[in-house]
């Protein structure tokens, strides 16, 4: 990350009386932001404090929705079930997606043959819509005529073929791995940017001091890459805790089968905007309460990890 020093900055500041005008420029953006981000947040917070009769707002009930969410069956069960899946989502993404992405970024950074082609190839899945990816993989994973099971049968691993998305033991993992495949290109670019911002002299100096291979990577490159690792960890965390599109595209809003792919965002969707087929249990109050809880989980953990990980970063 380059440091921009003040004297390099071109002077575009208006002089004299026109100076106050500059403060008016952010206003259009602030209005849009206020209308579509700040206002909904505040209203969601307020909704969570009311009792709702279907779509009709009832009386003010204080924190009752939050209490219900955490103490009444089956809401508390579904919450912790979904929460566990989000944590699992985060761990697998950190290990598989970010681990592989860092390895790929490192190979491209070392300028292996065809690295610019590989850079584009790894990024390709990111260009597809999540819905398209969901349907594509649903076809590949179809238990009876999908490509994966056909392949497994052909090469004699018949007993490995399973209904991947219908079996609660594999459904969530399958979705997370598809999400990793989807996200690897983006993570790789972030890591690559981090690697490329390390001054060449530092690496040379380390080499002269005798750092080689793993120890060069571990002791010099990795610490210098910490800013991009920090930001990628936090992105992954937010993404994992707001996981929705892919689960919804592949398994619907019920977290099927048997709630094994339920995440907090899917659970929220189910609570706040009814369920499959339209008929069902709209509960705006509980949904809003869950959204508020989700907001605090994501905001506080992100802020805390930002603070903790910044301490480990090395300035250069």
């Amino acid at each position, binding site marked *: 990350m380059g440091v921009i020093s003040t004297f390099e900055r071109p002077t575009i500041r208006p002089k004299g009386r026109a100076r106050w005008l500059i403060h008016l420029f952010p206003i259009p953006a602030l209005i849009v932001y206020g209308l579509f981000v700040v206002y909904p947040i505040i209203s969601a917070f307020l909704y969570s404090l009311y009792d709702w009769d279907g*779509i009709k707002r009832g009386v003010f009930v204080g924190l009752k929705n939050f209490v219900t969410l955490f103490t009444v069956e089956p809401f508390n069960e579904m919450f912790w079930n979904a929460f566990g899946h989000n944590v699992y989502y985060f761990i697998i993404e950190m290990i598989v997606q970010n681990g592989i992405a860092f390895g790929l970024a490192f190979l491209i950074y070392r300028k292996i043959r065809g690295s610019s082609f590989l850079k584009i190839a790894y990024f390709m899945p990111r260009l597809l819509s999540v819905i398209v990816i969901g349907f594509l993989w649903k076809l590949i994973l179809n238990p009876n005529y999908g490509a994966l099971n056909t392949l497994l049968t052909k090469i004699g691993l018949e007993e490995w073929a399973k209904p991947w998305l219908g079996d609660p033991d594999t459904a969530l993992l399958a979705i997370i791995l598809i999400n990793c495949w989807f996200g690897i290109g983006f993570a790789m670019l972030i890591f690559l940017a981090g690697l490329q911002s390390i001054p060449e002299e530092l690496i040379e100096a380390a080499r002269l001091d005798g750092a080689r291979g793993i120890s060069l990577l571990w002791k010099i490159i990795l610490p210098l890459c910490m800013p991009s690792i920090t930001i990628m960890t936090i992105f992954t965390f937010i993404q994992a805790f707001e996981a929705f599109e892919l689960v919804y595209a592949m398994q619907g809003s019920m977290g099927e089968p048997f709630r094994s792919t339920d995440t907090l965002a899917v659970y929220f969707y189910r609570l706040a905007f009814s369920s*499959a087929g339209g008929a069902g249990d709209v509960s705006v109050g509980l949904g809003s309460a869950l959204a508020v809880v989700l907001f605090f989980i994501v905001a506080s953990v992100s802020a805390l990890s930002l603070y903790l990980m910044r301490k480990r970063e090395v300035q250069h």
Partner: protein
Amino acid sequence: MKQFRFHAAASVVLAAAMALAGCSGGGGTEPAKSGGEPAGNASGGQGGGQQVTLSMHSWRVEDTEGYKQIIKAFEADNPNIKIEFKPFKATEYNTILNTALQSDSGPDILQLRPYAPGVSLAEAGYLEPLDGVAGISSFPKDVLAAATGKDGKVYGVPLSLNSTQFYYNKKIFEENGLKEPKSWDELIATSKALKEKGIVPISFGAKEGWLLSLSHGVIAPASYNSDYLDKLQKGESDLKSPEFLGSVQRMQELIPYFPENYVGLELNDMRTLFATGKAAMFINGSFELEGIKKLNPDLQLDFFPMPTDDGKAVITTWVDGSYAVNSKSKHKQEATKFMEFMATKKFGELFANQFKRISAVPGVTTDDPLVNKMAELSQSSSTPYLMVVHFAEGKPTTKQTLENALQGMYLGKMSPEQVVDEVQKSAATWYPPFKK
């Protein structure tokens, strides 16, 4: 570095904020009381030949062309009324409609979900009572029940009936010398015979929950004794009764006759297996008729009603939807005229032929013998789809609880006893007869 740090922190907070921003769909205002002014005042006077355009919302995007034809027939008789048909995706319809109603920008005419979810709109004051509409009284009472409020008033003109049944492939049955089963044991024997021949007996999948409660709706009435449903509604019996437990056990008994990997199969897979002749039977609704025929027009398709233990054969039915008038519409009179049209036999016949569906208007026939057979059976020997008609309430609904529990049973995580325990527990939280 400092600047980057601030930006990072800011972007984290903003990204997190997006989670919350997504959730403020439902509006917050209380609906104004309905019926404040006489209807005559609201519309711009009648007979003046003034052109009125009514908006009409529906969740049947796939029916747009057909509705155009039906609306044309209405407009020919009522030249001063134009109707603008606007369908939305079924899964988003409720959200769109609710938001529109809350912000007073709702349509004049709206398609109403059947039973509890639709009736809740009437209870919130968004709908106009339609008891006075000519033709309403010709509908049977249990059909009107789909749009009747707790105050006893009717808020919608029923549109169509759905029925669910065992479809079967006539050709496969004939080739193997099989007949329509007349009892549960015959159904099992038929399935066994098919399996021995290497044909999948029942095209079934457990991945989509709603299909599990739908299939249960077909199979369950076989084990209900004639007075079980009455007792249930009086609170004298419950969902842990031998009848209901028996129905869940039968769902389990059928497992050997399902396709390979059935826990991962979806509706598309099931339909394909059946339409291509790989499976002999398929439990599904009247609404699947078109889809199956489209996939294989040459399929020799038929269906049989469910044989019950007391020697009858029943078809499971429920009202699929009704049409209602927005209580805040500016053109209530004209909208009511359309409601009258929807209650006529002329409309019923147009509808049934256009969509190959069972019209809710009594005595309507079509040019499709299977639809006629379904319509006849749903008049003569129907049984309600219990989970939709009586148990679609609760948070989560008792219907959803059953779906999830059945999924658990098929995955080997729950026993039939645990399934009925869960379902009863859910119903006990809200079902009025159980609360006494």
